[in-house]
């Protein structure tokens, strides 16, 4: 048993998978440079010492990184390709959306793409091009699984499940949750560290978890917003409102059984996401709950998300942009009050 941050847990997970399976390798920018950082958020720090040939430092070439990873994956290797910031995925959009997501389908199911992609996300004082939450853009692309681990335990377990999955899996990691240390520490970071059990475990893709039980409303949230939802639930409890917080952990596949069972119990649902409201993944979840659970709902499903603007830089504006515990609590109050 060890107490680890997300960055440490991911590093341990990568180490164990590379030791377990020689097909696993990492490629990305600045991930194994001597005297470097071990990736933008220290996840691969030191791994190059043991796995020199399998920690591949690339040029700044995102289309190349994901395209090469795809080529290696279809030959039976198990690449873990990453970008420094999720915003940089857009340079690789053709490879991810047209090639990686569709290769198996276009082949009539004959080609497998065992490929893990990792991308840090979240508004963190870096403005419009280093702080987006692009989950929703990929959520609308068939052929990619999407995971959003909010704790160190889940980050390690999901990474291992993704490496072994045999399909393209895009893992979004939140910059404020990594627990990066030293010069790479983030201001405003949230403690997402966990007790990590000794020995091997996986967190299956598509399996959510109830983070806090409650009876009046179901709050569905991932990554940083999951932590904000827990804060909101704490405040609401003091007001006599019992909120259940569900962390779906994966967006694709989505744990409908868990969400539906909760909504049956609470009769109200709130979906929280950090990215812009328009076209957000939360809209799909909210509309599906509305469609399939209408017999159980006593109020319309509500959403909390960012406004439809780029991520602003100035701290007061960034705080206005990104949903927080109070905004979540307010939405719950109006939901419960409307019943």
């Amino acid at each position, binding site marked *: 048993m060890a107490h680890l941050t997300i960055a440490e847990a991911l590093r341990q997970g990568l180490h164990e998978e590379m030791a377990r399976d020689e097909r696993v390798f990492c490629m990305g920018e600045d991930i194994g440079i001597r005297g470097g950082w071990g990736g933008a958020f220290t996840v691969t720090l030191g791994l190059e010492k043991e796995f020199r040939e399998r920690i591949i430092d690339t040029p700044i070439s995102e289309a190349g990184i994901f*395209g090469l990873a795809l080529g*290696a994956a279809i030959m039976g*290797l198990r690449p873990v390709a990453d970008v420094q910031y999720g915003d940089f995925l857009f340079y690789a959009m053709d490879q991810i959306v047209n*090639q990686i997501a569709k290769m198996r389908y*276009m082949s009539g*199911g004959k080609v497998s793409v065992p490929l893990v992609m990792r991308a840090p996300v979240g508004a963190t004082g870096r403005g419009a091009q280093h702080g987006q939450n692009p989950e929703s853009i990929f959520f609308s692309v068939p052929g990619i699984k999407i995971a959003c681990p909010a704790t160190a335990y889940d980050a390690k377990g999901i990474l291992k499940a993704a490496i072994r999955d045999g399909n393209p899996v895009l893992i979004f990691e939140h910059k404020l949750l990594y627990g990066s240390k030293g010069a790479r520490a983030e201001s405003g970071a949230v403690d997402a560290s966990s007790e990590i059990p000794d020995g091997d475990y996986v967190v299956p893709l598509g399996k959510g978890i109830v983070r806090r039980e409650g009876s009046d409303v179901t709050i569905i949230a991932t990554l940083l917003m999951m932590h904000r939802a827990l804060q909101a639930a704490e405040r609401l409890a003091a007001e006599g409102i019992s909120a259940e917080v569900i962390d779906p952990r994966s967006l694709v596949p989505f744990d409908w059984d868990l969400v539906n069972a909760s909504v049956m119990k609470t009769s109200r649902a709130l979906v929280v996401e950090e990215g812009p409201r328009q076209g957000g993944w939360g809209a799909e979840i909210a509309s599906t709950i509305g469609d399939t659970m209408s017999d159980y709902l006593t109020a319309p499903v509500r959403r909390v998300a960012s406004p439809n603007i780029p991520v602003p830089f100035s701290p007061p504006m960034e705080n206005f942009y990104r949903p927080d515990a109070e905004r979540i609590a307010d939405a719950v109050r109006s939901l419960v009050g409307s019943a």
Partner: protein
Amino acid sequence: MSYDAKFLLSLYRKMLLIRHFEERVKYLFLEGIMPGTIHQYQGQEAIAVGVCSALHADDVITSTHRPHGHAIAKGLTVESLMHELFGKISGCCRGKGGSMHVGDMEKGMVPAVAIVAGGVPIATGVALAFSLRKEPRVAVAFMGDGAVNEGAFHEAVNMAAIWSLPVVYVIENNLYSASTPIFEMVRLKRLSDRAAGYGIPGVSIDGNDVLKVYETAREAVERARSGGGPTLVECMTYRITGHSRRDPCNYQPEEERKRALENEPIGRFASHLQSSGVADQAGLDRLAAEVDAEIEHAVETAMAAQDPKPEQALEDIFA
């Protein structure tokens, strides 16, 4: 270099198989018998055949929106292709790919990538896998001339160069990116000059001379296989059919077209085979009859094959 007659005739037969396959497909298409759209390979056959003849069965190619020739040259059967073009479940991609995505990993062909230059990083990644596993195998990325102006081309070729990956980049320069003359879109006389910018060998050759293509490919493939890294090969050629269905090619000057028809690779190679005494006209005619029978069989079985069930569209997303 001298070759035995059997080898020379096998090159000729493969080129002819591609040409007649494409002509038959064009007819079926214009008659409205075949669904979809098509990008055809007439005039460029010497490149696919010359390059693939320099490869081992377990070497791997990536292709483009114009993939029928590469597929036949790499060993896919015309039957599996024809069934795919007709959208049948018995096609090489079970009807999910169609003309622009034909391929078969068992034959060493990645399902074709129909985004210009999209296959270039993928072939490079295939080569990365060979390199990491220390397997003596080679990847080839076929691409059109337009691909050299895509960012993905630049990123991938550079990565192959810095890691000495076993990959050969084959540019089929048919002078037009769709209808746009390529030499209005680059300030170069030879696209292979780009190689110098990556620190790798580059060469421009007559892509309508199948033996020249074969010899050049063999050298590049051996360099790649022995750890010498990538090569950029520009094959000069000409598309003697439209870019895609029903393209009347009004952008191709008449004189240029006429010269291209005189220079097309199959007629040239037939003359060579006859003048060098490898085959006579009757022998070449027999080969033509053979490939036509093979193609007719593919058409008949494809048209008779079962359509997929519509809801089979929902399968094959994830493993």
